[in-house]
């Protein structure tokens, strides 16, 4: 029997070998980090800065630990950008499957090389972490970001008349469900991976420049779930233009075949609360709105006079499928609702 508890983690020698291969950003506001490891990491935020915290963790959805590390880290950074903050440090958590030590070491090395690459691109320092053994590969980051407290992007600022902008196409949940079932074309997965690897940093900066009133990142609850959170926080309704919802190549074909991610049923319940009976959850496009996203894009409300400029800049800044998907409407009833047009 294998030890649980504190024994069930990667050995110290192995960790030292892995750390020896990693490169991380050195930052002046990190007093104690991996460069001179101690019991805990210590940072000194600049005076007046708001400190933003988030944590995320998930099981591997692809069999390439390096890509999983890159995408996982990108996913975890999404919350920081969605708050209008810049990432400062990250702490890593990894679950490594039981196996021969050499294999465990290789997987962990590839995973961490991927994660640190993404963190370095974001200018964030890896300041510490913890590993555990488990049944399957899992990875997550707790990320700390810094923001101007007066310029935080919240879910609650939506104003009726604002335009809704989505910065990345939807469909990663369905596509990777299809990949596992051997039903996805390689080209679709390639495009989905490319989208998942794209950082939200430039999009967040662009949205802020164009006076976004509210913002969130689209992840596990699907577009509709996260939109619902924003509507609740802002006490507004929204109108979605179904013809303008951007989809990853192959996502609609996959949904049409009935292949959906396993989180989908939960998202349906969540979203059902947003619509009145008679609005009808019909069509594959609605299923796409419920599709859970890994490293999804940002959903933001932007005052209508700024939305066209904002959209064209988003597309130039590396998000070619960014789209204006609808608008915010005043609250019509007791609770927020989503209306469809097409």
């Amino acid at each position: 029997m294998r030890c649980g508890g504190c024994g069930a983690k990667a050995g110290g020698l192995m960790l030292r070998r892995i750390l020896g291969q990693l490169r991380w950003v050195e930052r002046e506001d990190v007093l104690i980090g991996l460069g001179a490891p101690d019991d805990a990491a210590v940072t000194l935020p600049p005076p007046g800065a708001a400190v933003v915290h988030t944590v995320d963790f998930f099981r591997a959805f692809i069999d390439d630990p390096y890509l999983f590390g890159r995408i996982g880290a990108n996913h975890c950074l999404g919350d920081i950008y969605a708050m209008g903050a810049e990432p400062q440090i990250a702490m890593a958590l990894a679950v490594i499957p039981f196996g021969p030590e050499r294999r465990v070491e290789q997987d962990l090395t590839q995973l961490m090389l991927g994660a640190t690459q993404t963190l370095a691109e974001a200018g964030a320092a890896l300041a510490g972490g913890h590993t555990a053994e488990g049944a399957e590969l899992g990875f997550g980051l707790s990320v700390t970001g810094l923001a101007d407290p007066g310029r935080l992007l919240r879910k609650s600022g939506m104003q009726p008349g604002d335009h809704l902008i989505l910065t990345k196409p939807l469909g990663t949940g369905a596509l990777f469900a299809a990949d596992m079932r051997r039903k996805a074309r390689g080209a679709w997965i390639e495009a989905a991976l490319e989208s998942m690897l794209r950082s939200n940093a430039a999009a967040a900066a662009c949205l802020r420049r164009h006076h976004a009133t509210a913002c969130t990142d689209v992840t596990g609850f699907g577009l509709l779930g996260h939109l619902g959170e924003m509507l609740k926080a802002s006490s507004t309704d929204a109108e979605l233009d179904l013809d303008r919802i951007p989809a990853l190549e192959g996502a609609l074909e996959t949904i049409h075949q009935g292949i959906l991610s396993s989180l989908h049923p939960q998202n349906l319940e969540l979203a059902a609360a947003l619509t009145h009976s008679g609005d009808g959850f019909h069509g594959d496009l609605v299923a796409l709105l419920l599709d859970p996203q890994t490293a999804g894009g940002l959903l933001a409300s932007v005052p209508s006079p700024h939305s066209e400029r904002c959209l064209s800049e988003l597309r130039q800044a590396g998000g070619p499928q960014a789209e204006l998907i609808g608008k915010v409407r005043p609250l019509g009833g007791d609770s927020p609702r989503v209306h469809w047009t097409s």
Partner: protein
Amino acid sequence: LVLVGGGHAHVAVLKSFGMKPMTGVRITLISDRPVTPYSGMLPGLIAGHYPPAAAHIELRPLCHFAQARFFRSTLTGLDLEQRLARCDNRPPVSFDLVSIDTGSTPATAGVPGADQHALAIKPVHRFMERWEQITEAAADRREGPLRIVVVGGGAGGVELILSVRQRLVHKEPGPVPRHPRTPDVEFHLISDAPVLLPTHNRRVQAIFTRIFRERAIHAHLGQRAVTVEADAVHCDSGRSVPYDALIWVTTAAAPPWIAESGLATDAAGFLLVNDCLRSCSHPFVLAAGDVAAVRNHPRPKSGVFAVRQGPPLALNLRRLLGGREPRPFTPQRQALSLISTGDQRAVASRGPLALEGAWLWRVKDWIDRRWMRQYRELPEMHPSGFFAQANSLASTHAP
């Protein structure tokens, strides 16, 4: 076990490990593309007889079937001391045993200007992208004939020019009229050999000489292309052939990383292997397909031989992984070639045999489709390994 390249031999290896998994073995496929083209169907693909999906194998589903990991990367070299496969877009991948089946590209390096101006038949995806542009250019052409020039007079070059002509001159698949007018496209083939298809028998050569004449394809034989400019190919005889599109289908060239890694190579730089498909210098490296040169049994670079190497390669990888001695494999001396003529007819060539007919295309089509079906229609196996439990994709999310 790390497999590099998704060539014809490696898809057979993946299928084999999927049908009969080997416990304790982790397989990783490194491929620069998520799909692999089947060379047998390439002429039909170019001619428009097959949609792209019919002539390509999707590698990700095949890897899942084999419980192999798929890494989309291009190999840049092997570190034989540390047993690492170096890649263009990721950290190196370590291996105990590695098998190489990355194919080859036509040799343009020795001809100044060819690299820059000529369109090589391989890699196929790049060729097909450019090919679509050429077909559009042909349709829009207003002034003078569009001149297509193919360099290479082996089976590959001959099949290619006939397929290209089929697609450009006859928009729909079907038999070619006996004396077609080809008002807007001119076809030229340049070969340094004195005859078409120099490795085939005289009767096969005569059939293709007649077909070229019927279809008004100019053959510039005994002409070695020595330099290429933006609009013309110059031959050693002094002849110049102007072109609008230049396609390169000459003998294969080896990638430089093989010799740079320190692996034994043949004179042309291909990975030299013994009868067991093991490297003559590094026994933990195996190779098959165009990238390999079997020391005792040199054969032309052709998909037929790569396909035949699949089963013995799979067997020897299994034996080596199980700690047993590999078995030598003798490839057949002559292979039956079915050379398509672009119009859904084909010529059979083997030794002194030469046959021509529409029925031979149907035989070829049947053989090719049967081969593809093995990799496109995979049986459902009991789920296990990585993907067995990985059903939930998204994390539950808290801010």
